[in-house]
């Protein structure tokens, strides 16, 4: 039987606020346990939540970025369950009335077609603390630094049909939240966590199969592998006469498998109800326009513009708009040197390779956009050959110097003085009479030998065009 995979994603992205969603405690990552939790985060008796307007602003920006309706009135609700790292015994979230309603994003499939994926909703909520099971022989440690950190939970429609589509969608959301500056998207630190609802059904069937939810995946690679494993598991199960049960599963990256965490019957009844400590959240036009006035150009729009404005291929435009920082860097180079295609090659080629090798961020690149534009200018004006330019770039990368300084220091300036090149050619012709003979007898291939000799002698600095011209003239003479 032919099977169709149906996937929906729930993505928790940590909002980049200075303080927590309902308290003034800081949100910085990596502090000593329990040093960033105040009375509100600890759920002490009598304390009350105070909504952080910045978290609301960031959620509104996201809604706008995915063309979603922003609810003029949304409601915080309590999700009740007991867990040691959940100090109040409930999580403040949004349930029936979320702040961001239906929206959509576009993803590019492998064959280049564009598919629209629906976003059902996005809602604000607070994160829980962390339970630390290591290091406390027989006990569990609780770190409440993360408790109360603002999250935006972004829920997709079940529109995704393969692990690759799921990854493309997740990357798209990741790209958007970083573009609009609402989250650092740092996956190692848990700022971007994904849950996947996965089911399969025979091709052509309208109703959905029973789904399993894979919780807390924190890398795109694991997301792809976890879904792929789960799809295989469900198909094998059904084909061998079994039934998929609704359950929550965890992905084990070491064993590359998902395994059951709890079934529907074991699931909590969260007893959601509107939080009486918080008034309904009302967003007026003034707040909406202030929150979204400085929304940057979004990735899709930027990609289209790069194609039309700089004449880039879709592939290059896609690559160079992957992050806002990269796109900004590219544009700065392109504008400074006025050579957009050459700039695209250098940024996507040498620069990206160097960044990948050093595992560095573009913001910390030792070669600034201005410096790279300077190098490209030197290629254009013939100061340095295309071949030696890579060497210049390496020099710039390791020293942080400008192209001119590196060319000067390493003596990489192209030789364009005709008499100097002529002198070299004369000497080479004199030293290789046999090859001259062959060439003159009509063996054109030998020409390459002479070019090679000149370049070798000049340390690759001789201007190739001049070498060609002079060699031809001299050998024909």
């Amino acid at each position, binding site marked *: 039987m032919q099977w169709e995979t149906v996937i929906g994603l729930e993505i928790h992205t940590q909002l980049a606020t200075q303080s927590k969603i309902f308290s003034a405690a800081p949100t910085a990552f990596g502090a000593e346990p329990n040093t960033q939790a105040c009375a509100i985060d600890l*759920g*002490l*008796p009598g*304390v*009350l939540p105070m*909504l952080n307007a910045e978290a609301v602003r960031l959620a509104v920006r996201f809604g706008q970025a995915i063309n979603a309706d922003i609810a003029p009135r949304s409601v915080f609700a309590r999700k*009740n369950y007991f867990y040691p790292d959940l*100090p109040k015994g409930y999580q403040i979230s949004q349930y029936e009335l979320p702040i961001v309603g239906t929206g959509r994003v576009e993803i590019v499939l492998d064959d280049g077609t564009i598919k629209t994926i629906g976003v059902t909703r996005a809602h604000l909520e607070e994160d829980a603390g962390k339970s630390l099971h290591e290091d406390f022989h027989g006990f569990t440690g609780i770190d409440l630094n993360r408790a109360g950190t603002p999250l935006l939970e972004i829920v997709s429609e079940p529109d995704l049909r393969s692990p690759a589509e799921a990854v493309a969608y997740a990357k798209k959301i990741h790209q958007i939240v970083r573009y609009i500056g609402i989250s650092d998207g740092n996956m190692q630190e848990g700022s971007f966590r994904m849950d996947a609802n996965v089911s399969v059904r025979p091709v052509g069937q309208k109703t959905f199969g029973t789904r399993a939810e894979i919780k807390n995946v924190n890398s795109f690679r694991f997301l792809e592998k976890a879904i792929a494993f789960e799809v295989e598991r469900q198909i094998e199960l059904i084909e061998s006469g079994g039934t998929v049960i609704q359950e929550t599963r965890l992905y084990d990256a070491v064993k590359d498998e998902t395994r059951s965490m709890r079934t529907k019957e074991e699931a909590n009844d969260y*007893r959601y*109800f509107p939080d009486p400590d918080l008034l309904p959240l009302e967003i007026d036009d003034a707040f909406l326009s202030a929150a979204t006035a400085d929304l940057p150009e979004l990735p899709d729009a930027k990609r289209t513009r790069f194609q039309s404005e700089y004449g880039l291929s879709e592939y290059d435009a896609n690559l160079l708009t992957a992050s806002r920082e990269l796109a900004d860097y590219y544009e700065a180079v392109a504008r400074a040197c006025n050579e957009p295609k050459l700039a695209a090659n250098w940024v996507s080629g040498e620069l990206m390779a160097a960044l990948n090798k050093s595992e560095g961020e573009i913001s910390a690149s030792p070669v600034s956009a201005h410096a790279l534009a300077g190098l490209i200018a030197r290629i254009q004006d013939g100061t340095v050959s295309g071949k030696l330019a890579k060497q210049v770039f390496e020099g710039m990368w390791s020293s942080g110097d400008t192209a001119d300084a590196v060319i000067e220091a390493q003596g990489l300036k192209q030789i364009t003085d005709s008499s100097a090149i002529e002198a070299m050619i004369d000497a080479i012709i004199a030293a290789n009479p046999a090859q001259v003979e062959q060439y003159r007898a009509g063996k054109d291939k030998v020409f390459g030998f002479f070019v090679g000799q000149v370049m070798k002698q000049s340390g690759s600095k001789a201007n190739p065009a001049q070498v060609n011209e002079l060699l031809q003239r001299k050998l024909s003479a």
Partner: protein
Amino acid sequence: MQNKSIAQLAADLRLRTYSSVELTQHYLERIARLDPTLNAFITVAADAALDAAHRADATLKRGDAGPLTGIPIAHKDIFCTQGLRTSCGSRMLDNFIAPYDATIVERLAAAGAVVLGKTNMDEFAMGSSNETSWYGPVKNPWDTTRVPGGSSGGSAAAVAARLCAAATASDTGGSIRQPAALCGITGIKPTYGRCSRWGMIAFASSLDQAGVMARSAADAAFILDEMAGFDERDATSAALPVPDYVDALDDDLHGLRIGLPKEYFGAGLDARIGDVVMAAIKEYEALGAELVEISLPNSALSVPVYYVVAPAECSSNLARFDGVRYGHRCANPVDLEDLYKRSRAEGFGPEVQRRIMIGTYVLSAGYYDAYYLKAQQIRQLIAADFTRAFEQVDVIMGPTSPTLAFPLGSKLDDPVAMYLNDIYTIATNLAGLPGMSIPVEPVAGLPVGLQIIGNYFQEARLLNVAHRYQHVTHWHQAAPEGCE
């Protein structure tokens, strides 16, 4: 000294007729003498009170005293007090010392008040007799075989027995007004949102409101003046200006339209209470007021609605008491579930457990719509009854409680009978309206309360209406035998 009004005490302190230390010592002596019988206090903070009184005297000497500088008061043990245990009447919090003050505690301290201690209460404010307290029942100063009412029974008894000049309290379904009625004192529950809930341990967040218990409306006005007002730490507190409650006390009552809901004078009301309450209302006629019969048709639904909404919120609010971070923790838990179950079973008394279970039930999947949602809808109808009534009248009057103070233990085994004691007070909480209780002529030697309900944020009017009655009557001045 203990029979003087707050205005008189403040004047005496300024003239240094006596010092705040002397006044504080006087109250501490009364507490030492009378409270072993009454059990109105859970914690007496004698040293801290005397320190505060010394500071108050210094302030008075410098001549920059605030309105309450040096006046000894008590706080219901539901309000967090930095460095002083806040138990909420529960074993669960027997060891809890808050690292912060409730907003109203902070504001009264800033106004110069001296805190004598923390008063007894029904556990987590759940009760109408003060018998659910982990620290034992409070006795009614008028008859120590009877209950003082609840949940603010400790504050009511302390004020009635003159163990403090006034006390703070909270009211979720009648917890200020009913004990005020049963103890013969004046109590005011302001509009929901008038006083900050920050630092007040939550029972039912959409109903809880802090207020005052005092010997007169004028005294209550002095205290409320300092407590009321917006607090950015409480999202539900009202960002509205607060009028001067003392200033409005003497306003004339001519033309005041008093609504008498027929539902508040029907079956279930002790006829003797009905008579003295009507006699008091007639007094208002003599003061120039006009009586209008009104109807609050959904009144009968207020108790059932309340016992869905309040337990629902409490089941969630009390989830934080899990034995993990603070409060009672059972000995030697074998695992997490054991820790939760035994800590909570040991830490909470039977009434609290009953309400947590009811609340958990009404919020659970499949029952939410039938109970919680339906109750919230009826709550709107109850509020609408009042909105319609206030188109015709300025205040609403009736009895505070259907019964006199009842004997200790008499209703403990019948929760429904206990719940019905709040039948006249609950609707105001559901609607969020301000309400008061003031003493009228006693029945069989026991106090009776007249309830006065006002429109939203009409506390000044309520205090004024109460004060004018107290100006021409003396019921509020009566003291229980042995407490004069």
